[in-house]
């Protein structure tokens, strides 16, 4: 079912009253420099028309020709992506708070304060988010030009984080993390519970922050930058590499050969299948069905091994490169991938029946971690989890860029918003991606898979926007006239979905948290950067 949006809700771009400049990219993306009064007005107009906030970030160009200090917000509207840039007053370094319009803006604004020193005026939550007080003494926002964070004395412990306390008889707290009981990324969860029932979950993230955005400015855009983008979140390496390359190619006005983008899509769909297979196994296991984990992890291993043989890397890292694809699989390899799709599809269908007919599994899946569609829309739940709560957005359908414009991707949605819904979306998407992979292998156009990029000799800006397996990944890139990266912002859909997980767990029991958490499977590294 395509994303249904009534015509009356369509936002006329001209109604925004902005001087929109279309970016050269295969997805419809615009950029506009705005004034202070327009900042909140644009947000309201987008929210009123059913659009969503994709990302917010700050830029301190240091007067290097890429603008001075500015706050950015990127919105998804029915026509595409609108990125607004608000130049800020050097004296105050602040902009109007957007969290009242888009709740997901809250944490992004807190991160802007931590990283770039830009503040949201009147924001309700002024606590630091990514900064735990250990980066520098005295504090120095690491993305300000000339900022020289000086090491804190050895043995310094992180600042106390003021969690919200739940008052009342019999309420106690369970603190979990940052080292979790499993093979998982680091983060902290604070549960307030009565008996087994969760009254409130509050997350504290930022443990995996390793200075990625500052590191970008030290790397060359063609080589190191692309490699680093592929390591923002290892499970989404293809999505990030593609978004980064799209941004660079857009900034430098470079067209990628057709064969190159088809191969990128082939890898993106293989990445989607790999992650869904892993999650489906883990979800069965978390519901007590070890058989599911054994079976799906076997299929995932088969899948990764063929990726390793064909693309030279099991996760396909560094295979998407600026200008196209570093790998051009020969016909025999494409045949093997198609045959493998048939095998995997047969097995996935058997396993889906096994899951569907297993009363114990269904009892755990159904109704657990429910996010109803109205709440999902209000909080901006996005990507795969959003589609499980009837948020029918998928860039591959909404703005079918090449090669998706020739593939007629079917969006997978569910209305119930529980673990079962997110499992069903995964099953549907695996089957659809297998179909796409066969079509991509069969219809692969001729010609080169990669071209050399020519750097522009002036300061430029570009964006990349890709539907990864978890949801939409956005990369915004400012390259200086000297060909160096001035700023590279990477946005993971986990930013939108982490806060919604806090709502999904309310009223559920503590032992269901691993299952509910896994059904979202959000990235820590992609969020913490």
């Amino acid at each position, binding site marked *: 079912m395509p994303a249904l949006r009534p015509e009356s809700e369509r936002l006329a771009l001209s109604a925004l009253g902005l001087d929109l400049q279309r970016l050269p990219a295969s997805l419809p993306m615009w950029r506009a420099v705005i004034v202070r009064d327009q900042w909140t007005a644009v947000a309201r107009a987008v929210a009123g028309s059913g659009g969503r906030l994709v990302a917010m970030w700050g830029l301190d160009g240091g007067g290097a020709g890429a603008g001075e200090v500015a706050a950015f917000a990127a919105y998804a509207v029915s026509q595409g992506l609108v990125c607004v840039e608000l130049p800020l007053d050097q004296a105050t370094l602040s902009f109007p708070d957007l969290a009242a319009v888009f709740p997901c803006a809250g944490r992004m604004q807190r991160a802007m304060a931590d990283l770039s020193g830009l503040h949201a005026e009147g924001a309700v939550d002024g606590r630091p988010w990514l900064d735990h007080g250990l980066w520098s003494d005295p504090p120095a926002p690491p993305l300000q030009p000339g900022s020289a964070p000086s090491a804190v004395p050895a043995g310094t412990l992180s600042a106390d984080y003021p969690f919200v306390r739940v008052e009342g008889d019999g309420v106690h707290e369970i603190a979990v993390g940052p080292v979790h009981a499993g093979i998982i990324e680091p983060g902290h969860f604070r549960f307030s519970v009565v008996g087994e029932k969760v009254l409130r979950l509050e997350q504290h993230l930022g443990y995996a922050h390793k200075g990625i955005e500052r590191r970008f400015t030290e790397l060359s855009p063609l080589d190191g930058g692309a490699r680093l983008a592929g*390591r923002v979140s*290892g499970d989404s390496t293809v999505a990030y590499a593609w978004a980064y390359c799209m941004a660079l190619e857009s900034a430098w006005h470079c067209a990628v050969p057709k064969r190159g983008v088809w191969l990128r899509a082939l890898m993106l769909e293989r990445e989607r299948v790999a992650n869904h297979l892993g999650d489906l196994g883990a979800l069965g296991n978390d519901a007590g069905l070890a058989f599911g984990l054994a079976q799906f992890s076997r299929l995932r291993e088969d899948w990764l091994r063929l990726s390793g043989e064909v693309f030279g890397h099991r996760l396909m890292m560094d295979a998407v490169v600026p200008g196209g694809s570093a790998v051009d699989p020969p016909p025999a390899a494409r045949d093997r991938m198609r045959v493998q799709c048939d095998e995997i599809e047969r097995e996935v269908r058997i396993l889906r029946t096994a899951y569907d007919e297993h009363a114990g599994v269904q009892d755990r899946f159904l109704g657990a971690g429910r996010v109803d569609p109205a709440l999902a829309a209000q909080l901006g739940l996005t990507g795969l989890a959003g589609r499980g709560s009837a948020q029918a957005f998928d860039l591959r359908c909404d703005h079918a860029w090449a090669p998706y414009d020739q593939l007629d991707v079917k969006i997978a949605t569910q209305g119930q918003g529980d673990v079962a819904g997110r499992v069903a979306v995964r099953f549907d998407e695996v089957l659809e991606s297998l179909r796409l992979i066969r079509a991509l292998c069969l219809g692969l156009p001729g010609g080169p898979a990669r071209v050399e990029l020519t750097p522009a000799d002036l300061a430029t800006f570009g964006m990349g926007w890709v539907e990864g397996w978890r949801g939409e990944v956005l990369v915004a890139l400012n390259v200086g006239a000297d060909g160096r990266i001035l700023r590279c912002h990477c946005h993971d859909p986990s930013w939108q979905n982490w806060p919604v997980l806090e709502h999904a767990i309310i009223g559920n029991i503590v032992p269901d948290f691993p299952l509910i958490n896994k059904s979202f499977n959000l990235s820590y590294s992609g969020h913490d950067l």
Partner: protein
Amino acid sequence: MWHILKQVARTGIASEPAPMSPQAGRAVVERLHHDLLGILGQALTIRQVDAGSCNGCELEIHALNNPYYNIEGLGIRFVASPRHADMLLVTGPVSRHMEEALRRTYDAVPEPKLVVAVGDCGCTGGIFGESYASLGRIANVIPVDATVPGCPPPPAQILQTILDVVRRTVVGAPTL
């Protein structure tokens, strides 16, 4: 239930021999069990710590649990607490925010307190290097017994190093 039984029967046993020697096979696995028991008096237990990785290494460590590598069949288990662990399997780089947590986890591990650093970032700091937020390689924070380079290293290589470390420790350890 019928579907499950049929699928189990159809799949058969997918496990492959452990990647430890040319004459891999049953005898080798038995020898490994003997070695593990010799040094630890029990199965090898591992606590995995992500000290700030991109999660790529975690995906490959997870794969060790799949039927092909069948790590539990070798007598090796991932455990939830460092107090139950013989070995820490650590991925990096060590973020500034994870430094203290990694140290405390290390302190909680009983002897023999083996540490294996997994991945290029854990070995050298990798592409993230050292910065205001990253302390680089694992050895900058806790003592490391062995490293597994790779970005990420494939599961077989991680398993190989785990086994090498155990065997090395066996040779140097007094007979229990």
